[in-house]
């Protein structure tokens, strides 16, 4: 297997693209800051108004069209109350409308960073567009980097950081695309993406080069690409967990009649129950992929070193991270841990992941040859 020469022109294009992506992310970040600031006015009470108007629409149409089928389901909520979910289907159109209302259940989800301010909402939409544009530039940069050496573009810390940041933004965009109420996630994601890219460009940068033979394996492509995807998703879950902890504290203090800080901000976040569930879902969905990542790594190690598992520090910390996430899932599934207790576990697991990526490479030397900073 002979490797192509490094295409310096493409490598340069990749560098320009990463700077452009960072510029666009910065703009997106400012737009999000504006969104949060403008949205501060009057974001709270309006939701219920919107809801009731929706309900009215449904009732009206129910009265108007004959043969409408409508069901209201009572759902027991976490805090001991109930919520309702209404599903309406017009007999001929076949379409169903769903409205979910809240009974006396827990607090409702906030509307998002824009509150009910239209200007803020517009800026927020711009921020989303900018984030998507930044992501495209970012992706183009990663691809150009890969093409410049005709290999998977994650052979060293710089490349891995870029890919990881990309996956993080992608996780956010995917959540948005699946109609999840996650606009609030935009600001932390862009800020951290900028941070990671900043460190990557300023500290970890290495010229586009070929890899040592130990890294020539298609398992590298599989192992590392799934690892970056997991990283991005774990990160999204991490931010959600943090938001959960803040919001939960806020809700509790509010309920207890204590003073609360940043009420305006907090009100626009989803309800703590929603955040708790979201972070759990992300972690649960990505856990099998993380398992696969470790196994792919083991298969690669078998081919390269003759042993699929040698307790090399990177392997060890992947294992620790895996067990930590397994413990988290276990705690939720079997021990009924929920809320704060589970959230601390999730944070711990993410800390292990983070240490595996940065800490192990910097503080511990192992066989993973790309680990050099």
């Amino acid at each position, binding site marked *: *297997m*002979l490797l192509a020469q*490094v295409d310096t022109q493409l490598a340069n294009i990749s560098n320009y693209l990463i700077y452009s992506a960072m510029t666009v992310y910065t703009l997106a970040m400012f737009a999000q800051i504006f969104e949060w600031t403008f949205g501060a006015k009057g974001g709270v009470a309006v939701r219920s108004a919107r809801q009731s108007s929706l309900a009215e629409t449904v009732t009206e149409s129910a009265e108007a069209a004959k043969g409408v*089928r409508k*069901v*209201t*389901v*009572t*759902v*027991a*909520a*976490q805090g*001991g*109350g*109930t919520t309702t*979910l209404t*599903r*309406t*289907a017009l007999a001929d159109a076949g379409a169903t409308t769903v409205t979910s209302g809240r*009974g006396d259940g827990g607090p409702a989800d906030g509307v998002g960073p824009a509150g009910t301010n239209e200007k803020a909402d517009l800026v927020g939409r711009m921020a989303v567009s900018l984030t998507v544009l930044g992501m495209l530039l970012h992706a183009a940069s990663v691809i150009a980097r890969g093409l410049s050496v005709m290999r998977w573009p994650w052979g060293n810390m710089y490349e891995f950081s870029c890919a990881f940041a990309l996956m993080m933004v992608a996780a956010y965009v995917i959540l948005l695309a699946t109609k999840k109420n996650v606009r609030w996630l935009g600001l932390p994601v862009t800020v951290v993406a900028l941070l990671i890219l900043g460190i990557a460009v300023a500290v970890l940068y*290495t*010229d586009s*080069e*070929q890899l040592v*033979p*130990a890294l*020539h*394996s298609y398992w590298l492509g599989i192992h590392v690409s799934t690892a970056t995807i997991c990283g991005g998703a774990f990160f999204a879950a991490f931010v959600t967990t943090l938001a959960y902890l803040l919001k939960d504290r806020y809700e509790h203090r509010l309920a207890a009649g204590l003073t609360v800080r940043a009420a305006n901000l907090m009100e626009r976040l989803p309800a703590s129950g929603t955040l708790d*569930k979201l972070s*759990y*879902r992300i972690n*649960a*969905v990505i856990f*099998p992929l993380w*398992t696969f990542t470790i*196994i792919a790594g083991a298969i*690669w190690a078998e*081919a*390269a*070193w*003759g*042993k*699929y598992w*040698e*307790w090399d*520090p990177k392997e*060890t910390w992947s294992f*620790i991270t895996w*067990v930590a996430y397994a*413990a988290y*899932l*276990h*705690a939720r*599934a*079997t*021990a*009924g841990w*929920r809320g704060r207790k589970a959230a601390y576990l999730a944070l711990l697991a993410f800390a292990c992941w983070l240490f595996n990526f940065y800490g*192990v490479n910097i503080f*511990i030397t192992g066989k993973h040859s790309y680990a050099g900073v």
Partner: protein
Amino acid sequence: MSDTKTSLQPADAADDPDVERLSTAPEENDTAPVGIGVLGWLRWFWRQLTSMRVALLLLFLLSLAAIPGSLVPQSTNPVKVADWKNAHRGITPLYEKLQLFDVYSSVWFSAIYILLFVSLAGCILPRTWQFVGVLRAQPPAAPRNLTRMPVYAAWHTGAAPEQVDAAARRLLGKRRFRVAAGTGPVAAEKGYLREVGNLLFHFALFALLTGFAWASLDSGSGTKIVLEGQGYSNTTTQLDDFTGSRFYGIDDLDAFGFKLDGFTAEFQTSGPAAGTAKEFVANVRYWEGADSGKQKNAKIEVNHPLEVGGSKVFLTAHGFAPVVTVRNAKDEVVYRGPTVFLPRDSNVTSPGVIKVNDYGTGPDGEKTQLAFQGFFLPTAASDFTHTGPISVFPAAADPRLVLSAYVGDLRTDSGLPQNVYELDNKAMTQLQVDGKPAAVNLKVGEGWDLPDGYGSVTFDGYQQWANFTVSHRPGNSVALLGAVAAILGLIGSLFIQRRRIWVRAVTAPDGRTLVEVAGLGRSESARTAEELAEIAVELQDDAPAADEPPGPDGPADDVPAAADSPAAAVPTAPETKE
């Protein structure tokens, strides 16, 4: 009881115990031992060990216990361990006692995972029986009070109860629910694969462990340096070193051999990473069994081992062997051939020793031995006054051999095993010129007349060698199978949701039919509600709602407000993804 019970269900668990246990997890009971005696304590201990709380604790401990092994060098890397011990003499004995250099085979690490697996067995086997029971049984009948179920809907209809029941059976069947046979109220369940996935995952962990255990009990590996043109057959006498295990010793080596026809290395020649390897290829001819007649060609590369006769041959290092001819004082050839020098850095600066045991007699007529100590440099630096002899590029662009010479007793006959790569010069003197150690820097083809008439040495050329690791590791396929099963099981366990749906139609006092549908999922997932709503809407094709739809505040006597239901205790689990 503790918070660890999985099967907590809302509602009247008292009068419908069967319905409420959707989970098949064994029930937990941590009351202290009943009665006295060893048996009571054993039973108590066993219950503790197989409880979820202890399983969780052991999982934590396992990840904690793995940490020291990543911080302290492990004995799989003896050089690092030795360095560390030298640098921390004071604390070394304590570390040794704590087995910190062998964390992953230490007593305490083993204890944790063995306990974990015992706990797992104690948990998973009963779960399996229970699940088999569940599969054999019909979905449990509807509980008396459906309003207390986590999701609930109701409406009045003009259709007859039997009609509604039949329609519901049809509908749920079409949605691939398992519907209890019979007539009357409908009970249906779906998502059994979740439990299958969960059991598969936990069983797969055993397969993984088996694979690990097999590998560590029945594996062995050795290394061998082979010169270009040289052959190798897989026996202990030929291996440079060998580590076996309980069931794989030196007599069990797989029979095969190979001949290294050539070795090529390619390096980056420019840029900041110049000198970084691009590829290493060893071209070999190999045979299986003792008969070397039938040979096949193969390439061994990094990441591409050769599989032969139950072993794998990995290419793990390469280097050079300078070829020299040594003549003694009488000008007789006393040594000729390649000598392996071991690389010290990434540019293959290779220190080495050439020992001439059969030198004969020196210029003074006394019997003596001769040795050279020096470096082979594939691409010598132009000047090494400050650095000592070093190579600046890993390929042989300007190969040099730097040597100094010793005469005296090599002490090879002392009976002690000697490292061929090191010189024991305790009984030797270095040859000198003008009172300074004599040394020479030879190009290929050049020679050196040794001082004091000790003869000469010529640098005839060099050969490359490759280092191979021959490894026999069974159990890989078991471990791989376990890993694949674990992933499949996880996907089933995490993405599939198990839920039950009941439909009951009864004639209300006012003569109309009251249709009640209720659902119970293993998580507080809103999707159960959505699914139930969909089913209810579809059911209204056959049981159209009467004009006044009873919501939660509909027919108040039938549907008490659910606010007081202990719904918080809905069993929980990951969400479904369908």
